[in-house]
């Protein structure tokens, strides 16, 4: 991804470095390499355990399983890059999703918002706005009140969950009730033998957009700088508060989009969030080589991390192993990823 050629790594100090130091240097420069290696190794192992693993249907299934976590993990990456964390991301997605579905299905009858009646596009738009709003709330509490992101989002996790149940009465909206456009991202199209979701395409587009933004825009550079050393960023003339706030708002936007995606993927809208969604997004980011201490990591690494989670899950069930092994494997990977990050940041040229 870097425009620099790998040769400039070894330019000057090559003689003095041991192999281990050279590996450390390469991983420091290309942090998505370690998750990529893990992914490739996992794919090879699962293929050896069961050849069906690499059948087009199964690969298509893996991408479909990755789509929600993968999209939300973009938001989580942005936040973790600023040395923050979002524990409320799953609850916020559920809130936005329920707002979207309820607006599209029930509003006509209840006449609360007459303009929204029978207009699923408006419902989707308002649902995405609800996602943005959750980001505004998190960002406001973190930046204005200077509260730690961990505590704020632990609180809003409960707040958003409760709001969903209070506002939408714990009522699941089933597939037949839902307007077609709400489910559009869950439709598939055929490329050869692969069946891809439109949602997967949307996810990949989002990865491309945010990969570009983080690498090539002033905002992206400032996101890294703020997470790396907030004091240095502030003294360099960056408004750290504005950057952090904007990150939570952008994360909220992604949450809103992910809410739409979830409806398409699941087919229905349930007020009970997937309990693993929060942790899976953080896991994807961490396994993807982004540092929990902020300032380093790549969006590409997160995509790989999200795929590692589903590949391990899918591969283990194809191999006939219990899901407990999936939890075990992911746990070990997280610890290895954090240890690798600690080691990489001690790099010396």
């Amino acid at each position, binding site marked *: 991804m870097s425009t620099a050629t790998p040769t400039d790594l070894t330019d000057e100090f090559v003689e003095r470095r041991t192999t281990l130091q050279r590996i450390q240097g390469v991983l420091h420069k290309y942090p998505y390499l370690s998750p990529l290696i893990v992914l490739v190794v996992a794919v090879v192992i699962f293929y050896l355990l069961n050849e069906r693993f690499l059948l087009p249907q199964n690969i298509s299934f893996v991408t479909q399983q990755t789509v929600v976590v993968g999209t939300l993990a973009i938001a989580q990456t942005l936040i973790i890059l600023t040395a923050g964390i979002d524990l409320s991301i799953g609850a916020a997605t559920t809130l936005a999703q329920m707002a979207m579905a309820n607006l599209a299905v029930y509003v006509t009858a209840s006449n609360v918002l007459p303009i929204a009646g029978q207009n699923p596009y408006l419902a989707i738009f308002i649902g995405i706005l609800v996602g943005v709003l959750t980001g505004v709330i998190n960002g406001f509490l973190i930046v204005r009140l200077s509260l730690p992101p961990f505590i704020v989002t632990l609180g809003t996790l409960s707040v958003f969950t409760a709001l969903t149940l209070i506002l939408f009465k714990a009522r699941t909206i089933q597939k037949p009730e839902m307007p077609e456009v709400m489910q559009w991202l869950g439709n598939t199209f055929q490329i050869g033998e692969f069946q891809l979701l439109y949602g997967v395409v949307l996810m990949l587009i989002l990865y491309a957009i945010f990969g570009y933004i983080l690498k090539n825009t002033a905002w992206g550079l400032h996101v890294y*700088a703020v997470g790396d050393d907030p004091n240095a960023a502030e003294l360099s003339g*960056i408004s750290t508060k504005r950057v952090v706030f904007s990150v939570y708002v952008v994360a909220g936007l992604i949450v809103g989009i992910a809410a739409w995606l979830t409806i398409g993927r699941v087919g229905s809208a349930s007020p009970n969030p997937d309990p693993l969604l929060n942790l899976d997004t953080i896991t994807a980011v961490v396994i993807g080589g982004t540092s929990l201490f902020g300032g380093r990591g790549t969006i590409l690494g997160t995509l790989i991390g999200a795929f590692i989670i589903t590949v391990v899950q899918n591969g283990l069930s194809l191999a006939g192993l219990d899901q407990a092994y999936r939890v075990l494997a992911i746990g070990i990977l997280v610890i290895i990823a954090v240890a690798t990050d600690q080691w990489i940041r001690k790099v010396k040229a």
Partner: protein
Amino acid sequence: MTATTTVSPIVQGKHLIKTFGRVVALDGADLELYPGEVLAVVGDNGAGKSSLIKCFSGAHIPDSGEMFINGDRVEFKSTSEARRHGVETVFQTLAVAPALDIASNLYLGREERKPGVVGALFRTLDKKRMRADSAQHLKDLGISTLQNITQAVETLSGGQRQAVAVARAAAFGSQVIILDEPTAALGVNESARVLKMIQDLRERGLSVILISHNMPQVFEVADRIHIARLGKRAAVVTPRSASMNDVVAVMTGAMTVPENEQQLTPVN
């Protein structure tokens, strides 16, 4: 002192007061920096040296008092505002982002953008130009040990990081460069290089404020020495008019200088 020149200060602070809760960091401090000089600011710990210069850097906002740049009254609310007035600072902490590369650090907070709509609307970075210009700036300062401009700053030695911070200030400072303890963490050779850089900056016509604890270094490069004590200016001397012992005596309060002799314009 009889020297009454018509040169007006490029940087001036009048009766600056800055408190942090109950701690009084600046208690009516004054400062004058004249064009093309190196002014050393010395003082004991807690004398208000860093607080004083941070007002001019835009990192602190004084509670009261007035600041002037080229005779114009200024109020800096952020470091960017000070930078816009041509005042650049090398902070004691260096204020560099360790995971970012050298070029990104040089341009941090004032990135060059691509021309046209992409640059204006999406704030797309012109990395090529920033890298080329950064390499040129480092070359101008005679820093040849940094060969790879895309190297992360955390992979550099302490002296090299210092060089990056100084290069950033030198590249953009059009009038004044403030250095807070630039040699405190450096070895002998690296310190010598930074002192050489300070002299080069003066030769390029810039005015420099140097905070230092190191008396021999201060006497080596400074044109005048501003001695801070208890949040005020205790005296201004020149390396020729005073000895190191005198300076230390004023710093610690063993010797006091009458109010009317505290101001000293440059002897040129």
